[in-house]
């Protein structure tokens, strides 16, 4: 046991700088990752940057106060408090300006943080005889120069922030997502906002030790953004973000040791590279998966053309070759379409022939109906017969049920298209037990009257009457019905529309 302990001590003796840097860096990385999540979800990234810069002024002010009032030189707690206050003041000023004037928030941030930062510089210059501080080094920061007192400060900040994030997870989650609802539940939204700002300021102060003021925002935001690309739940995002932050610190630090450069920049560069890699390969939100999805997608037109082709073919199993021949697209597109249709359960591929399923038939007939109605519509509006099919072929892909119903109604529920082919009935709406206007009925349908509109008054019809639809007369303009007791009724389009019937269950 003693031997082992001595061994550890010996190893530590020559590697204490590594242990120290790792400890400080990992702790800071964890809190940066976690706080960063809230910063990006609440769109506070710019504000985070502002706090980092404002911090400098706070440090100077804290230093001056401690030295001038208490005679303490470079008092770390004093400067820490100064940084926090400066952060607060900046955030408050930003809120004040953006709420009370037409200045938008991002502009207000730009104004305030540069102002506060410059005020700090002014203070430093003014009281330069008092200050023993090396501001430049403060700005650059170096994890290798971290001392014991810094380490304790980092430990304190990490403990505080992580406790806040863990214990207040639910309130923070809901105030970040829906502050209105949070307020309505009685959750103190403003107080939580201030708490989060405090945490950000604390984290910024400790992170400056590692990466310096200029790079702090990178370390705060980048790991969180990386986690955002792969997580769908806030709880997971917090953990993943911390992991990404720690990994970028460790890898960056090791890389800096290998190439022998200052660690701060190496860490942030690693973090950014990590982000770019994830951006490309992330499973759902990454660029690669997006590209693959789009590449695998077949244009809807082709899918519908395939369906239509199989339906028209009529045989029990249509050879794929026939489909290829009739559908005007590349062979591989057709293959993809067939596979997609099979996945959706609209057809079955058996060997080198395909068959439509029931659902497939339904859909294909719908498209056919749309096609024929479009043809009728175009012909009515004067399109020459020869162009009819192609034009309608384009338009048939506009087959939203409402649009088709509109066409059907406008055209007076036609029975045949300009080529003489039968237009299927509105089988989407004409299901047994459904309530439809009588104008939809085709010869042979049985139905019961359910309601009568204005146009149907005075026709001697009453609710509950059973009727059977007869053939259409006068070129489709007149609907005929057979009523009980042998009575026949003739209705115009408007009248037929006004009679609501329930289709009998056959």
């Amino acid at each position: 046991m003693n031997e082992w302990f001595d061994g550890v001590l010996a190893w530590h003796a020559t590697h204490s700088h590594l242990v120290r840097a790792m400890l400080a860096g990992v702790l800071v990385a964890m809190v940066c990752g976690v706080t960063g999540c809230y910063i990006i979800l609440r769109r506070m990234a710019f504000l985070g940057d502002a706090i980092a810069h404002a911090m400098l002024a706070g440090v100077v002010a804290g230093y001056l106060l401690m030295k001038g009032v208490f005679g303490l030189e470079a008092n770390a707690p004093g400067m820490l408090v100064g940084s926090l206050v400066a952060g607060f003041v900046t955030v408050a000023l930003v809120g004040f300006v953006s709420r009370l004037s037409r200045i938008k928030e991002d502009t207000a941030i730009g104004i305030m943080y540069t102002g506060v930062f410059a005020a700090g510089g002014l203070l430093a210059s003014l009281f330069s005889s008092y200050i023993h501080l090396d501001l430049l080094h403060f700005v650059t920061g170096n994890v290798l120069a971290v001392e014991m007192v810094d380490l304790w400060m980092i430990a304190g900040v990490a403990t505080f922030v992580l406790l806040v994030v863990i214990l207040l997870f639910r309130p923070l989650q809901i105030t970040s997502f829906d502050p209105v609802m949070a307020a309505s539940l009685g959750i103190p939204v403003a107080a939580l906002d201030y708490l989060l700002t405090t945490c950000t300021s604390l984290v910024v102060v400790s992170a400056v030790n590692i990466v310096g003021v200029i790079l702090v925002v990178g370390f705060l935001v980048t790991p969180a953004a990386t986690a955002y690309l792969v997580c769908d739940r806030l709880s997971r995002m917090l953990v993943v973000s911390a992991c990404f932050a720690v990994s970028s610190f460790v890898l960056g630090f090791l890389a800096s040791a290998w190439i022998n450069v200052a660690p701060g920049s190496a860490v942030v560069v690693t973090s950014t590279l990590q982000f770019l890699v994830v951006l490309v390969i992330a499973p759902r939100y990454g660029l690669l998966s997006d590209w693959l999805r789009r590449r695998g997608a077949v244009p809807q037109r082709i899918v519908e053309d395939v369906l239509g082709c199989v339906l028209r073919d009529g045989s029990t199993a249509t050879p794929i070759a026939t489909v290829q021949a009739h559908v005007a697209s590349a062979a591989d597109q057709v293959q993809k379409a067939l596979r997609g249709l099979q996945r959706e359960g609209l057809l079955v591929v058996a060997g080198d022939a395909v068959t439509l399923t029931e659902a497939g038939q339904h859909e294909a007939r719908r498209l056919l109906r749309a096609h024929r109605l479009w043809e009728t519509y175009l012909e009515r509006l004067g399109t020459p017969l020869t162009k009819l099919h192609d034009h309608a072929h384009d338009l048939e892909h506009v087959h939203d049920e409402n649009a088709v119903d509109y066409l059907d109604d406008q055209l007076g529920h036609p029975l045949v298209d300009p080529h003489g082919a039968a237009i299927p009935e509105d089988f989407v709406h004409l299901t047994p037990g459904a309530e439809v206007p009588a104008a939809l009925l085709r010869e042979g349908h049985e139905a019961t009257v359910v309601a009568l509109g204005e146009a149907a008054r005075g026709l001697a019809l009453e609710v509950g009457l059973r009727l059977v639809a007869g053939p259409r007369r006068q070129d489709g303009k007149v609907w005929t019905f057979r009523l009980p007791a042998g009575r026949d009724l003739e209705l115009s389009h408007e009248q037929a529309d006004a009679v609501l019937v329930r289709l009998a269950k056959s």
Partner: protein
Amino acid sequence: MTTAPRETTSPSSATPAIEVRHLTVSYGPVPALLDVSLSIPAGQLIGVIGPNGSGKSTLIKAILGFVRPVFGEVLIFGQPAERAKGRVAYVPQRGSVDWDFPVTVREVALMGRFGRVRWWREPSAEDYRAADEALEMVRMTPYRDRQIGQLSGGQQQRVFMARAMAQGADILLLDEPFSGVDAATERAILDVLERTKAGGRTLIVVHHDLATAAEYFDMIALVKQRLYAFGPTAAVLQADLLAEVYEGRLQAFAGLVRRGKEQSP
């Protein structure tokens, strides 16, 4: 008096779900709401309609307790609004939600329970059950673990309704749930509303479209700074009244009114 709203409500014996008395809300010299009084019975599907900027949202905010009226009060089941927090649930406009937030459908429904869960505790098994039941009510169970951005418009609406229901609220306030959705989604949403109502809840919907208002709601409140009318749909949708509120021509509304009458047998 021409300023008095048309008396078209039949007084009910039960405590009204929401009672608004002489509510006046003003942000400046021109009041957003002026002397609005109405008594909303429980278990109804109520539409609040009016032209843009008519104070509809202000009315909702006042009911939720988000704005302080300069005069008047709002009572929720007989209690002042501040004390009744949690009995009223708000379903926000789709545009105001951050759909990219990393949160799943189930988690959003669960949020409805946060009013009851002490912040340091995890939601209990009962909370999870309530959330799941709410999701079942709106038929969103198969999408439980989906991130909310991956849903269609209608589904998104339903998730927030589930949240409102998980809250255990008796009154739901919906802000323009039908705006920007297609016909099929509209039907789906209406279906959910009807079923929610059947469960004994009161639904108050801010709506923008006069034509559909006639079909959807049991009662309508016609608001333009003042309350012009409140009562059963057919009674409120009078051509002359609509013309006055919407400053349009009588002709335009005649057709609407007719359709409204047709739908109610």
